[in-house]
């Protein structure tokens, strides 16, 4: 079975990466590498990758767009962190708006429900007034009043949706 590693591997890698391989290395290490299959393979792979690494580092200097400076990275990180912090700070506020909107709708429904019996005579007065001003419009008014009297929960739900929808849409679609 082929050996998976060799005790000389770190030494050989250090020599290749330090450009000491093979001339500036100990003769015994060179002799070992020639005889050891693992070390031969390590030399081959490390030499190739080191060469590739050096070429890539040289290529940085020849790029049209240099790497960003430390100052630029620091500055962008600072601004980004602040923006994130601000966004995190407004998150409870958004929840607050939502709770406030829901409470308002609930209060509106409760208020209308409580006041509904006292509002019924007002519909009668309104119908009489419309009938007196314009007999033609009276039939339409009668129909509206009848609907309001008969379908109170539906009317309140529709009203609540009309109020809540723009608020919800605003919260959902606004830019962060």
């Amino acid at each position, binding site marked *: 079975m082929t050996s*998976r590693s060799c005790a000389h591997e770190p030494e050989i890698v*250090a020599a290749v*990466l330090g450009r000491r391989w093979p001339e500036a290395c100990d003769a015994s290490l060179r002799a070992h590498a020639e005889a050891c299959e693992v070390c031969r393979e390590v030399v081959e*792979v490390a030499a190739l990758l080191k060469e590739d690494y050096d070429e890539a*580092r040289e290529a940085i200097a020849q790029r049209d767009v240099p790497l960003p400076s430390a*100052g630029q990275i620091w500055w962008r*990180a600072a601004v980004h*962190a602040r923006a994130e912090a601000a966004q995190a700070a407004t998150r409870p506020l958004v929840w607050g708006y939502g709770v406030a909107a829901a409470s308002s709708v609930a209060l509106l429904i409760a208020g209308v429900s409580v006041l509904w019996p006292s509002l019924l005579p007002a519909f009668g007065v309104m119908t009489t007034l419309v009938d007196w001003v314009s007999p033609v419009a009276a039939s339409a008014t009668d129909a509206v009043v009848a609907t309001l009297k008969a379908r109170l929960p539906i009317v309140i739900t529709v009203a609540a949706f009309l109020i809540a929808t723009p608020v919800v849409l605003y919260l959902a679609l606004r830019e962060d």
Partner: protein
Amino acid sequence: MSGLVLSELERLAALEEAERTFPMNEEEFRAFYELTSRPVWVYLTRMTGDSRLADDLLQEAYYRLLRAKATFESEEHRRNYLYRIATNLVHDHRRRPRADREPLEDAERQPAPDSLTGSESRAARRIDLARAMARMKPRERSMLWLAYAHGCSHEEIAEVLGLKTSSLKALLHRARRRLAGFMTPAGGGETR
């Protein structure tokens, strides 16, 4: 980017806040960046096969490092942590749809080097290496690069890749064998 248009006062506040909340001050960061940015960029370029993507990931890696809650026992620990972030960013990128990550596969499509001599052989070897590396698994690629281009110890590689040091020897051996197997033998046109 409209959110990044800040007043002078906000700029100062952002910088003050950074000094207070980041795990190192600006001077320390500058020194650390000068020492690590090029090797990390090369690592990202070789892992993704795309230098423009490496630019973006480099910035993101340092940003995440600055925002990390971790405490670092030494410069080496911090450097290893940075490589770990960079490695995770590369892996995250690979999980995205394939259309986003053409460049690495481009290396696979390059022609095999024929028998070349002189200065051409270096370029051919580079293409051959790029092609062979592109065929490796991402973790193997990271492992080989850290071990043989950066000279990281087994412990450091294990820390960066989140592996057990005890299993690294075997994994590295396997990766090295696979890379050697994918490389064109010197002077030959066919891969083994």
